[in-house]
């Protein structure tokens, strides 16, 4: 009995002492020297923090990340915040339809001047600009960029006399060789990144169709799309892919050499180095050749997440100042190199020769950039597609049914838009 009473008394005291010291919501227009950067990449907290410390020294504005890990919850939260007094100073988002949506509602600060100036002094490039342009104006700046490349186990390649392929035929021949030696050529999954092979095969065979599909001008049941699914299915049937029911983390699979290749964004470097593989020595990267080489340029999928400021940010001036500094070489050097990824700023020197080569190639005229499927596709269609691809990976025979399911979601979405 006494124990209960003491416990209650202690609790009451603790509540009073601790509850008071949480910080309240900040509102109104004020001068800020400390910015909060809301993001759905909670895993990058330490990298954000190190940039935040640097910015305090450089421009007198410190920055602290507020990380989320579940992307859907994050997006719902940010959208909801637009109509409250809890507004983020800076926040990350996705390009494509989801960015267009919030821009068209007038929530996002225009960064056209910032882009013009940054392109003039070489901090940003023209080829990134289209992804940040809506109705002729620019919004947000690139938080990060990543190219979708094929990572491969170098030792496995060497042992089997293979080199990074330069044509689709070579690519398939390499897969055959590996398969015959009992090594699974490619990593496969039915969760989240189930879209990876779809986007790669489609953009490598008919980039125009890929583009039109994302704009609702083509159908998932069109012959070109069906052909891609058939190609994908034939690769699965040949045993090119890992069992999606295998829960081995991809980095460990690649390290063990049981799987020779995997298709990811360049950010996957972090996973491989943390698994104890050395870039250039244990693993390498190459761009996947077009399945259909007509048209000359190799299609290259890339991913770029925007860093945005609200038009009605708590301190708009400070937020804009931060974005401007963010794209500059000092910030980008810290940001890209601490994570071991590429930068949108061509002035940033990348110490890893493999990544450097990737960046250089991607910037050359031989490659055409395409926005990753995840960003290029509107949310309701993407949701249906990820589920459909997941189902396809497990039961490839049902590909027509899966395409119809996606098309139904697409019909629903686009009919509401018009």
């Amino acid at each position, binding site marked *: *009995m006494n124990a*209960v009473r003491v*416990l*209650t008394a202690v*609790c009451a005291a*603790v*509540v009073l002492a*601790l*509850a*008071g*010291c*949480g*910080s*309240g*919501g900040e509102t109104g227009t004020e001068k800020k020297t400390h910015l*909060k950067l*809301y993001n759905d*990449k*909670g*895993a*990058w*907290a*330490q990298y954000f923090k190190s940039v935040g410390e640097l910015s305090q020294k450089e421009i007198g504005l410190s920055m602290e990340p*507020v*990380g*989320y*890990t*579940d992307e859907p*919850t994050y997006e*719902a*939260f940010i959208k*909801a*915040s637009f*109509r*409250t*007094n*809890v507004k983020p100073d800076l926040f990350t988002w996705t390009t494509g339809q989801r960015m267009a949506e919030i821009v068209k509602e007038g929530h996002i600060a225009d960064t056209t001047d910032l882009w013009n100036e940054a392109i003039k002094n070489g901090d940003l490039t023209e080829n990134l600009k289209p992804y940040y342009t809506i109705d002729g104006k620019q919004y947000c700046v690139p938080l990060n960029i990543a190219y979708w490349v094929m990572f491969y186990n170098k030792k496995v390649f060497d042992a089997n006399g293979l080199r990074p392929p330069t044509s689709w035929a070579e690519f398939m021949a390499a897969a055959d060789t590996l398969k015959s030696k009992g090594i699974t050529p490619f990593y496969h999954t039915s969760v*989240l*990144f189930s879209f990876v092979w779809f986007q790669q095969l489609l953009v490598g065979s008919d980039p125009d169709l890929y583009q039109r599909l994302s704009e609702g001008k083509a159908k998932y049941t069109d012959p070109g799309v069906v052909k891609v699914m058939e190609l994908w299915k034939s690769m699965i049937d040949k045993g090119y892919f890992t069992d999606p029911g295998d829960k*081995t*983390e991809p*980095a*460990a*699979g690649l390290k*063990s050499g*049981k799987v020779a290749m995997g298709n990811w964004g360049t*950010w*996957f470097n*972090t*996973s*491989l*180095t*943390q*698994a*104890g593989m050395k870039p250039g020595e244990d693993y390498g990267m190459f761009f996947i050749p077009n399945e259909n080489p007509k048209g000359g340029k190799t299609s290259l999928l890339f991913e770029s997440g925007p860093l945005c400021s609200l038009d009605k940010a708590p301190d708009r001036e400070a937020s804009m100042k931060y974005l401007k500094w963010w794209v500059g070489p000092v910030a980008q050097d810290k940001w890209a190199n601490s994570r071991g990824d590429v930068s949108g700023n061509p002035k940033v020197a990348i110490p890893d020769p493999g990544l450097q080569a990737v960046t250089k190639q991607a910037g050359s005229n031989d490659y055409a950039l395409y926005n990753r499927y995840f960003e290029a596709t509107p949310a309701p269609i993407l949701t249906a597609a990820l589920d459909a691809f997941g189902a396809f990976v497990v039961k490839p025979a049902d590909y027509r049914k899966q395409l119809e399911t996606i098309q139904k979601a697409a019909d629903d979405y686009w009919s509401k838009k018009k």
Partner: protein
Amino acid sequence: MIRRLVLIVLGLIWLAPTYLLLANAARGLDDYDPERIWDLPGSFELLANMADAWARVELGPSIGATFLYAVVAPAAAVVIGAMAGFGISVLRVKGGFGWFMLIFGGTIFPTQMLLIPLFFGFSSTQLYDTRLGLLVIYTAISVPFAAFVMRNFFTGVAHSLFEAARMDGANLWRVFWRIYLPLALPALGAVFILEFTFIWNDLLFGLTLSQSPEVRPIMTAVSSLNSAYAGTRMPVILAAGILVSLPTVALFLFTQRIFARGLALGQF
């Protein structure tokens, strides 16, 4: 003897996944191989892995706040819930079942759907990103369960106890606080432990209703380890899982005494 044997066999089955957790959390970088997860670890790097996890996510600032929520909210909830149970079962409030269903009804809502409206409410009342705000949420979400258990518990107590206490002239609050609450200690303890664990492991409310490191609960930090962008090694993820479970495990060990000894109701 048979009882022990059955318990031992079942216990071993139950320990197998726990073994996987411990063995693979203890492995060093080169020892971890997804093909050989059942092997005894060839190295003992558990503490190093935990230290690695700790450094990556800076759990420090969240711990104090999480303890606050996980201790205070269930404590408040068991008392509030016991009050409701007392009102329904002992005082026999008119329409007791209806009131009870109303309170218990709080558990039937899918919590995910409460997040956005709660965020709207919190941001307009300055409760967003405060410890008080999270305490209120966690207490409220714990109350229906506490009320449910306590109502059932008090139903099992003979009504003569209440009449005897009233005869002595004690007021209702005293009867509740001095007689019924202590009587219910094992039930209160069980509810407290379960709610502690629930709140300690909560991610949803913490993520949506707070943003500062000193307000956000610990799981918001831990969850970031296990993401495609993090590239965290499996042993570190598992070690982090063990690390954050330690307080709950300690609580289980510590409170086992309450359940080991019978606080028989029969004497009343």
